[in-house]
Each structure stands twice: as structure tokens, then as C-alpha cells.
């Protein structure tokens, strides 16, 4: 489908690579389910982009791990790292598969939305209205995580996504905020945010 990126060894630590792979793969699952739930092709495309990044990281990690092995004992302890990294890569592929359902317009059965009402972690999407008390505040100031256990996984601003925004990111009028959390926290989040977006067009 896409051309594959040319790879060459870069001196990055195994630890940094693995942290990034683990973080990305888990975030991607929630982003991909959001893309399916809200039928958002642009978000699905972001997930595909992240999947490519994780693929590249997996190669980098294997190269670094190979270079680090100087003895059979090293090899034994490093193979565990490589196995875990490849599992993270599989998880990111799974997220890519969900994104593929959206991109190929295969369709999301109403059952999926109903099932998502029942899962432990809920996903939502809200639009920041003109004059909202949330506008021009940072995510840190909104205290979503400490107050309601909700975290923002993406913000759509104009045509761009800010994936996994930092705490000092400002929320602006017109932003579409995608968040995850426990059902009660998400309910409160939706109530305070003012308006949830109907499923469908993104």
C-alpha cells in the first residue's frame, strides 16, 4: 500500500525505543476504537501513520538489542526485550486493522456502538463551543485526570490532530476533544464540556 521507509541503524537506547513502542501501541488502540466509533477517517489515517512509526521502531530496537548482546547470557536476557517489543508491534498492527475498517469504509455495525456502551473504558468526543469556560485553558488547568479520571487522547484543531497532547496544551474554541475514562467520569466530562458530537461525520 505505502512505500516502506528506508532503515538504518541509529544509536537510540533499547529502553527509549521500548517505552515509545509501549506508549504508542496502547494509545493507538484507543485512538483506533475512537476512529471506528466516531467514523473518523482522518483519525484512522493518523493511526496508520503511527503504525508505520512503530514498525520502524521495532526494527531499530532489534538492531540495538543485537549490538548489545556480547554473550549467551546477554542474548537470553535481550530476547525477552525483543519478544515484548514485537508484542507491542502486534498490538499496534491490531490498531492499524481497526483503522483499516474505517479507511476501507467497511462499516461499523450499530452493535459496535452498543457494545461500547458496555465496556469498562468509555470514549467520547466533544466540541469546545464559542464562549465555553474551557476555552483558553490548559489541560492541566482543567484537571480532567485528577477530578474525573478522564484523559484527553487527541485534539482536532482545524484539519490537524494533536495526538496525546501535553498538559500545557491550550484548549481552544472550535477544538474537538477526544477523551477516554470510566463511564461516570466521561459522563461528567460530557456534561461540563457542554456539547457532545453526534456519531458520524468528523
Amino acid at each position: 500500500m505505502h512505500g516502506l521507509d528506508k532503515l538504518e541503524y541509529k544509536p537510540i537506547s533499547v529502553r527509549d525505543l521500548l517505552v515509545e513502542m509501549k506508549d504508542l501501541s496502547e494509545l493507538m488502540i484507543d485512538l483506533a476504537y475512537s476512529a471506528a466509533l466516531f467514523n473518523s477517517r482522518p483519525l484512522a489515517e493518523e493511526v496508520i501513520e503511527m503504525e508505520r512509526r512503530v514498525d520502524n521502531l521495532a526494527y531499530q530496537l532489534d538492531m540495538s538489542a543485537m549490538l548489545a548482546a556480547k554473550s549467551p547470557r546477554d542474548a537470553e536476557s535481550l530476547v525477552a526485550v525483543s519478544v515484548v517489543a514485537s508484542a507491542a508491534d502486534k498490538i499496534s498492527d491490531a490498531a492499524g486493522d481497526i483503522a483499516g475498517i474505517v479507511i476501507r469504509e467497511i462499516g461499523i455495525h450499530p452493535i459496535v456502538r452498543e457494545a461500547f456502551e458496555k465496556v469498562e473504558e468509555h470514549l467520547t468526543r466533544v466540541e469546545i463551543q464559542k464562549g465555553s469556560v474551557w476555552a483558553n485553558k490548559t489541560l492541566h488547568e482543567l484537571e480532567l485526570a485528577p477530578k474525573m479520571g478522564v484523559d484527553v487522547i487527541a485534539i482536532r484543531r482545524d484539519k490537524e490532530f494533536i495526538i496525546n497532547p501535553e498538559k500545557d496544551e491550550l484548549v481552544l474554541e472550535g477544538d474537538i476533544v477526544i477523551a477516554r475514562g470510566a463511564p461516570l467520569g466521561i459522563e461528567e466530562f460530557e456534561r461540563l464540556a457542554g456539547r457532545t458530537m453526534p456519531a458520524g461525520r468528523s
Partner: protein
Amino acid sequence: MVIKDTFKDIVDMLAELKDTSELMVDLAYSSILLNNKELAQEVATLEEHVDDLHTKFELLVLTRCISPQESKDYLGLIRLGVVTEKIADAAMQIAGVVLRGLQPHPVLKLAIKEAEETVVHAHVSKKSPLVGKTLREAQVHEETGMWVLCIKRADKWIRPKPDTVIEAGDQFIASGYAEGADDLKRLTNAEKRMK
């Protein structure tokens, strides 16, 4: 009505597949972090459960009489099921490291600890306000941002359900953002920190 019931069954199964697959990933990383074979074994048990459940789910979807217009939507449904199964397999691969008795390189534990979502062990003391509450009442996630993945009570591992009653002496294994870990420990009123 039969048709309505199948619909509900499919909904419930998909929700369970999604929840279980993600729980497994967290449990698998926990098993490495705590170097704990019981947790890894729990992942293996869940993996078999997901395999069974996924088969039932696919059979149930296939027994619906699907019109050509609906077929795409149902294909999406089947593919989502496949995805949860893939995630469960990935979790099993992680737990396999522990079950095979590999001594993982120290960077592995460091990386899991350093990741945005971390895993902690918290001990529920007698003084904790949680004692005697159900998990639903305790609202641990709303209060701390941490998900309780597993509870160790005496020698048993319990998978948390909303109506599970918390007892003094329980050990929670929970995952979430690092900042939530301190809040959780405050809530469980941990007397001593686990390593």
C-alpha cells in the same frame, strides 16, 4: 424474540472481548514487572477464554441472516473480533516471557515502569476508606485514574467485578498514569510500599 437476543449476545460478547483483551495486556506487563508466574498464568487462562469466546462470537454473527446491504457492517464486526483476538495473542506473547522463565534484561522493567501507563501494587490497610465497599461504590478509577486489574486476597487472585467487596489485606494490582499511583496508595492507605 430470538433475533433481538442474538443481537444482545453479540453486543455482550464484543464488549467482553474488548475488555478482556486490554486487561490481558496490562496483566501481562504486570507479570513481567513483578516477575510473577501466577499473573502470567492468568493471562494464559484468559487467552484460552478469548479464543473460545471469539469462536462463539464469529459463529453467532454468521448465523444472523445478513442481507447484502448489511454484509459490510457485519464484516466490520467480524474484523473487530479478530482484532481483540490479536491483542490477546500479543498479551500472551508478553506473558510467555515470564512463563518460560527467561530472566529479562533490566531495561525491560525500567521501560515498563517509565511508560506513561504504569502498573502498581497497592495494599489495602484496615484503615482504608475502601474496606467494606464494593468496587462500584469505591469509584477507584474516578478518584485516582487507576484501573484495578486484579486483586490478590490471601493466596487467591480475584478478577475485579463491580460488586466485588474490598477487604482489608487485599492487594490491588492497578494500572494507569504514574500520577494516579500516589493517589491510589493514599486511598488504600498503604502502610508500606511494595518494591
